[in-house]
């Protein structure tokens, strides 16, 4: 089982974690050697986070044991973990926005560290590892990539022997990710071990020495990822073959422009949001346009602008040739638009409300005749709403434990299928989707992507905002990149390269690349 000659740093034996009736982890075995980069592969919901939280002391196992350097160890809480030499770089929820970088780091250290000394050490260490940081900046002002640097530096200051990274590249540009890989390899060469959690197969193949694959809370395989193909890793991870997204190979004739944004600008709504600067783009009938970019560069603001949750000049946005920039979200829906926001729980759906209520949420105005009675009194026609909910759940294969559960009781993938189905059920002329498959399992993701392609094929215009470059390349006809509230053209999916998109995402040479891109973009149009 133990590949290689390296001494074992951490071993897990029969680790099990039960929540209520759910076995999140089912007698896991895992060995991490000294000085190796060990990948933990698995889909959303496979149990990766649960395992990691037990290793870091945030959760206690139901049974099984953890051996640290061969000694059985109880990791009571995160500070025990840190004392042992286990450091963690979180994906979410670990920095304090209103505090400074130095404050954030001091909080994770034990007693006896002064702020000044920590600030000095952090800046020295960040320079040494090529992760430039200023100790007195506030987290709220930093980009997502910079925040991750804070997490990593914070972790390194504790001089850990094992570093756990949870989906670190999901928030980075390809170039930033490259830099991270360099840093990680250097850390390994210093003799540290790294537990690298990901569902991105390519980077695991490039980066990692060993991989353990989880599915449904169990270990389903262990391998040397360098010896495997992406396809073999994927089938281990997902279990069955996931339906390949099918699209017609033939070029579709570009239809009329259905969504047209011209010179839209928007000042930041809150101190922590991004200003939109002179956004222009068109989406034609039958076309899927993708907007790539690192999170936090104005994607949500753009979504709110297009959806009408934030108003703008009337002529800034037109739909089917009609100026709609000053209309509210429901008027835009009545004109044939549909919207799927990034945040499922709390924006696209109310967590504590049932599916029928959540159907009404987005459809009450566009389908007044179908769902309401008695005119101005607006009495809800619940039979009709129930029927429509059932139809959508059947159509999108939404799996649920009760007839009409609350939204928060559904898994991420099933809820996203429901929300997508709620909009597709109307056959919208224009669909705007923000992060269509974020945090969704592979089966649901493939179904959702197929639905997007089918909708475009039926003559609708689709705008997809996504951080996931693979997804963009899989579904989109044309690619735009968003950086710091601006949009740059990257050209058609066939022409655009990852390198070029990565540069645009980083904003490094926005002007120059953007100029080239517009030319090529126009060339593609003329074609």
């Amino acid at each position, binding site marked *: 089982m133990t590949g290689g000659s390296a001494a074992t740093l951490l071993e897990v034996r029969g680790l099990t974690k039960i*929540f209520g009736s759910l076995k*999140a982890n089912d007698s896991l075995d895992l060995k991490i050697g000294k000085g190796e980069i060990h990948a933990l592969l698995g889909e959303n919901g496979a149990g990766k*986070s*649960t395992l990691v*939280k037990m290793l870091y*002391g*945030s*959760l206690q196992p139901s049974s099984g044991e953890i051996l640290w350097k061969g000694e059985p160890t109880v990791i009571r*809480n*995160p*500070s025990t973990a*840190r004392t042992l030499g286990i450091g963690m770089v*979180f994906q979410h*929820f*670990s*920095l*304090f*926005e*209103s*505090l400074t970088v130095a*404050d954030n780091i*001091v*909080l*994770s250290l034990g*007693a006896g560290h002064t702020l000044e000394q920590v600030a000095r050490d952090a800046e020295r260490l960040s320079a040494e590892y090529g992760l430039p940081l200023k100790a007195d900046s506030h987290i709220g002002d930093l980009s997502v990539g910079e925040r991750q640097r804070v997490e990593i530096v914070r972790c390194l200051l504790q001089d850990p022997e094992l570093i756990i990274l949870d989906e670190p590249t999901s928030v980075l540009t390809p170039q930033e990710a490259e830099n991270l890989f360099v840093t990680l390899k250097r850390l390994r060469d210093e003799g540290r071990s790294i537990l690298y959690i990901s569902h991105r197969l390519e980077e695991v193949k490039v980066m990692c020495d060993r991989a353990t694959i989880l599915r449904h809370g169990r270990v389903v395989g262990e391998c040397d990822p360098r010896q495997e193909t992406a396809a073999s890793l994927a089938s281990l991870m997902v279990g069955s073959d996931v339906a390949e997204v099918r699209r017609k190979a033939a070029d579709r004739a570009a239809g009329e422009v259905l969504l047209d944004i011209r010179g839209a600008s928007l000042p930041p709504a*809150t*101190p922590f949001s991004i200003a939109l600067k002179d956004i222009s783009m068109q989406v034609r009938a039958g076309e899927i346009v993708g907007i790539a970019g690192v999170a936090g560069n104005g994607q949500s603001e753009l979504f709110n602008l297009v959806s009408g949750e934030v108003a703008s000049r009337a002529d800034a946005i037109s739909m089917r040739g009609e100026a709609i920039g000053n209309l509210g979200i429901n008027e835009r829906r009545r004109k044939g638009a549909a919207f799927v926001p990034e945040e499922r729980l709390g924006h696209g759906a109310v967590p504590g409300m049932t599916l029928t209520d959540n159907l009404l949420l987005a459809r009450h105005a566009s389908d007044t005749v179908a769902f309401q009675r008695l005119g101005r009194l607006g009495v809800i026609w619940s039979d009709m709403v129930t029927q429509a909910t059932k139809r959508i759940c059947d159509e999108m294969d939404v799996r649920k434990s009760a007839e009409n559960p609350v939204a928060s009781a559904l898994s991420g993938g099933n809820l996203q299928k429901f929300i997508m189905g709620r909009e597709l059920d109307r056959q919208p002329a224009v669909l705007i989707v923000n992060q269509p498959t974020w945090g969704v399992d592979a089966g649901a993701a493939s179904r959702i992507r197929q639905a997007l392609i089918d909708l475009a094929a039926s003559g609708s215009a689709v705008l997809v905002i996504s951080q996931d470059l693979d997804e963009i390349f899989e579904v989109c006809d044309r690619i735009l990149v968003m950086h710091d509230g601006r949009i740059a053209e990257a050209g058609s999916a066939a022409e655009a390269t990852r390198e070029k998109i990565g540069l645009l995402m980083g904003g490094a040479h926005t002007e120059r690349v953007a100029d080239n891109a517009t030319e090529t973009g126009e060339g593609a149009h003329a074609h």
Partner: protein
Amino acid sequence: MGMFEAILLTVFAAATPLLLAAIGELVTERSGVLNLGVEGMMIMGAVAGFAFAQITGNPYLGALGGMVAGALFSLLFAFLAITLVTNQVATGLALTILGLGLSGLWGEAFIGVPGVKLTPIVIPLLSDIPLIGRLFFAQDILFYVSIALVFAVSWFLFKTKAGLILRSVGDSHGSAHALGINVARVRYLAVMFGGACAGLGGAHLSLVYTTQWIENMTAGRGWIALALVVFASWRPLRILLGAYLFGAITILQLHIQALNLSDLEFLPAPIYGLMSVLKSIPSQFLSSLPYLATIVVLVLISRNRRLTLINTPAMLGQGFVPDR
């Protein structure tokens, strides 16, 4: 002692309970908990302070009793809002309603009973300084405590690790929990500190400000203290400014009500005219000034959305349940 000095002394006395209650609530809110029960904790402090001073004959033990009563009473809120994750607004209201009821029942025996006064501590030499000596160095202990607390809280919040931990919990309880900080413990302590301060503020009312027990004697001061925290944008030193501003408004309207026009005939005609106009305003309108001023101040502060967004503890009012 001139009239001006006398007025200032009463302003100080009116400001101290507000200052005490507000600085405590500021710490509570900085940890992300909105305790609307300040009025209830204050009135419990007032009645307990009075009772303990009666029983022991010692006003210092009375003040201590008020403080302990406020802290213990706040535990009820903490248990519901933190452990049972109830709605903080409703729970705070419940604390106020219960406090007003309990204090009324407990205080029935004290109505009309003369209280024990917390006498001023005169600091030798310093109190002889002209003008400010009497104001700052011949006051009751709660005045000194209130001023010291403001600076101590400021130092604690911004210069100590424990203060940093408290602020971090108010900024993001999820992150704090992930780092291994015991969110519930920090919040319990912050709520109890707020309760102790509010209790002390209440004790000041029944041991210094009026030296007797009157039902509902807090008369909305707990709510004004809550408004002061917003006014101060959650910064301790600004509470000082706010509390004295409101102390001044409370006292000035009282002085206008008590004004005897015949004493003022020596004043120049325009000022005398102004005074007689003020005097002709019905007392009820003057009495409503502190409440109206609270509204005006809140409007002025909160209209700057950007500023309030930056300063408000991000978790304020949200319960925390550690997830999987």
